């Protein structure tokens, strides 16, 4: 609650700390934050609705552009969900390639986060270091998929590009280089007193709160919740790969840093296993353009946590409904809790610590009757349809006659 006696500071939508537009309203009592609320929606583009007007294949590329950091997460999650509705099993090689790109994406995303976190605490050298190292994995992704971000490697029924023989070596070399650098970061995180002091005890989220607020991904794992879709509900090739779920019981930003750096090391080992185990064979299966009616929910462990896609198909080549719940939406609730009773100066790092992605999160619009604020109502599809007909009638557009005539024609 925002109290009237406190100083209120609006932050955003344009602000130097984060790269995306969102605004915060902070109530301050002295230096302490007494209340914080987040206002989102600047990034809402209406992707879910647009998906209904495009075919499944077109949707794949649109969905990929929900977020430019975990683009592969969204497109894989969507493809998996559609494949489930259609009852398609993709070739094993395709599964491995999807997993490979997914892990490379996790590596680039975690390195990116490490840099951003460094920047938020005034440690810009770390930003420059990690982003320089991140270019190694970006080069690799560009080599494997043809683009640095928004890889476009998925298609419904498999992947679009195969790994060429020479690329295997490049991948392994890159992993060696990155592992060496990451070891240095781990050492840094464990020995650098300023870093530890700055991050410990900041943005505390107890295990109970994390569970209660539904924190996912590294945010949840740093509060001791051992939850990872890759382990709990394995998709793609994860069932055949060996890796640990990294957790920490520190419950603060320092814990989140340790979890992410630990996950980097796991990712390198996963990539190496993939390169060893990847079988030969086809990379796509043929999928009909029209997906049979049905609905499914897909889960995917994105770098930021569990990503959820819901798709309802109606037997045509376009989906009936697509719904995306990105990991940041699950984590953003926890931020207000973490900020309570903290100093204003901690705000950027606490917000950055969940690795927020607002272009992922801005999936909702609230429609409000501005004439009468009390009079909110929800409508089911049928009422909305009837209301639409009425609305057009009032403006002199009437389809009843035409409909009747058409019905007559069809009867004949």
């Amino acid at each position, binding site marked *: 609650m925002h109290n009237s006696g406190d100083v209120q500071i609006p932050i955003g*939508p*344009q*602000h*130097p700390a984060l*790269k*995306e*537009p969102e605004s915060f309203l902070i109530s301050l009592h002295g230096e302490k934050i007494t209340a914080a609320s987040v206002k989102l*929606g*600047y*990034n*809402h*583009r*209406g*992707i879910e*609705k*647009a998906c209904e007007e495009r075919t499944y294949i077109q949707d794949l*590329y*649109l969905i990929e*552009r*929900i*977020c*430019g*950091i975990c*683009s592969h997460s969204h497109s894989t999650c969507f493809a998996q969900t559609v494949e489930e509705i259609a009852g398609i099993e993709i070739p094993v090689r395709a599964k491995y390639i999807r997993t490979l790109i997914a892990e490379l994406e996790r590596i680039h995303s975690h390195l*990116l986060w490490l*840099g951003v976190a460094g920047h938020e605490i005034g440690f810009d050298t770390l*930003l*420059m270091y990690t*982003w*320089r190292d*991140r*270019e190694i994995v*970006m080069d690799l992704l560009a080599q494997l998929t043809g683009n*640095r*971000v*928004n890889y476009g490697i998925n298609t419904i029924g498999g992947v679009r590009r195969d790994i060429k023989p020479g690329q295997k070596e490049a991948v392994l070399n890159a992993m060696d280089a990155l592992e060496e650098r990451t070891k240095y970061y781990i050492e840094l995180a464990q020995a650098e007193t300023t870093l530890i002091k700055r991050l410990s005890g900041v943005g505390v989220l107890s295990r109970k709160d994390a569970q209660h607020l539904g924190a996912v991904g590294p945010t949840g794992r740093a509060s001791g919740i051992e939850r990872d879709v890759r382990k709990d509900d394995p998709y793609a090739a994860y069932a055949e790969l060996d890796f640990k779920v990294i957790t920490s019981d520190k419950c603060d930003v320092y814990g989140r840093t340790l979890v992410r750096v630990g996950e980097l090391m796991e990712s390198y080992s996963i990539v190496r296993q993939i390169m060893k185990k990847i079988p030969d064979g086809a990379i796509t299966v043929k999928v009909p353009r029209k997906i049979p009616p049905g609905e499914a929910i897909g889960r995917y462990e994105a770098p930021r946590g569990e990503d959820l896609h819901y798709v309802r198909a109606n037997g045509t080549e376009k989906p009936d409904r697509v719904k995306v719940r990105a990991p940041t939406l699950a984590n953003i609730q926890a931020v207000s809790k973490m900020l309570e009773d903290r100093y204003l100066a901690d705000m950027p790092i606490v917000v950055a610590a969940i690795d927020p*992605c607002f*272009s992922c999160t801005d999936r909702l*619009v609230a429609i409000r009757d501005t004439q009468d604020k009390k009079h909110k109502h929800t409508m089911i599809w049928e009422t909305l349809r009837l209301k639409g007909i009425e609305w057009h009638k009032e403006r002199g557009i009437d389809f009843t006659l035409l409909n009747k005539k058409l019905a007559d024609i069809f009867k004949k």
Partner: protein
Amino acid sequence: MSIATKIINWSRLKSPWVLHFNTGACNACDIEIIASLTPRYDIERFGVVLKATPRHADVLLCSGPVTKQIESRLLRIYEQMLEPKFVVAIGTCACTGGVFDGCYNVKGGINSVIPVSAYIPGCPASPKAIIDGVVKLLKSLEEK
């Protein structure tokens, strides 16, 4: 041209300060902008420095299609910048609306709201393209 304006123009061209504003992008273009500031690409060698407020900036780097909610904020930021000011649209979205053209909450490219001096297409525009675009913009100003 008097000597004073010559000096002012020279100094402007040698240190264009930029402000980055995300108008509804998918984040990829923004990340590529940051990537162009980091050691591999290092756009700072052209004197380009990222600034935090519109009042310090000469060039506004916009990424993403303009969403309806951000439209008025974009205008306000543009108005707060001091003359002479330039706008660079980064990414296909910012140029034309891209894949999001026609979405109910999207107005279109940046030029549907404010005038744009340079367009850098690409989805996302790679750091190399961004550097190329910015340098070309500076070149064209030099000729003026």
